[in-house]
């Protein structure tokens, strides 16, 4: 690895992406991204995945009888606790 932000290879850049993101760095402003269409496409892919994920439909709520099941289980636990 060169350690030179201006002259990173794609391999070096992509190997360090997670760490750079973890440290709060904005990768869109990184010198390698400015000059590399391959890694720009990679970042665009990841953004697309995040965008599509946000469009996933919310799940339906749980069945209306779930509370009754929880309530019954609570009562059973309370009964068990009280019997000791």
């Amino acid at each position, binding site marked *: 690895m060169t350690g030179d932000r201006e002259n990173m290879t794609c391999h070096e850049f992509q190997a360090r992406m*997670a760490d750079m993101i973890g*440290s709060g760095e904005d990768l869109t402003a990184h010198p390698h991204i400015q000059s590399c269409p391959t890694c720009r496409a*990679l970042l665009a892919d990841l953004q697309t995945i995040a965008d599509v994920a946000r469009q996933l439909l919310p799940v339906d709520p749980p069945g209306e009888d779930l509370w009754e099941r929880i309530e019954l289980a609570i009562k059973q*636990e309370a009964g068990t606790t009280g019997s000791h």
Partner: protein
Amino acid sequence: MPRTNTEKQDTLSPSVVQSAAAEVSARPHASPAPQADAEVLTRAQAGDHHAFAQLYALHKRRIYSLCLRMVSNPTEAEDLTQEAFLQLHRKIATFRGDSAFSTWLHRLAINVVLMHLRKKGLPVTSLDEAMEPTHDDGPGRSFGAPDLALTGSIDRLALERAISDLPAGYRLIFILHDVEGYEHNEIAAMLDCSIGNSKSQLHKARLKLRDALRTPLYQGEPR
């Protein structure tokens, strides 16, 4: 030991639970109003069964959603939701407000889910391990060529399938952030990790998904 109050454990009608749920059902990614949460929480901690029912109504959708997206099975997800709220009932008196109640409840539910996955034989035993996958760690084929870019070509069903195939740790972080909409500081509190760790794990999860979504393009082609 968690407090219970059998004196107040009268059965509540579904309408009581439904009316409380209506407060948040229109905004599934939003947290309940903190003030309302705090008041109800205090009463629930004192053993008020009606208040506990309200807490269930306020949080059931998001807890169930997390469970369902983690296990992809509605029956299992309901069982996990039930177990999470049973554990909440046992432990609610121990909540001291060191974090937001919703965060604390999510952490509890996440542990229930991960324990369930471990019992099914999947290699997840704790939040720490979930956050630090050791097998097949990291995306191996992320050095993509531009002509394989995914932009504009992902359908929701394909993404949902790819999410369900992710290792549990990556699936969890991706669902929490990109699907359910939690911020990194909230996730860090839920998973007891750093914000930086949350960000880097999310990045790896997205790379895994990208690899998975690109795989069909490679079938039958020499590399």
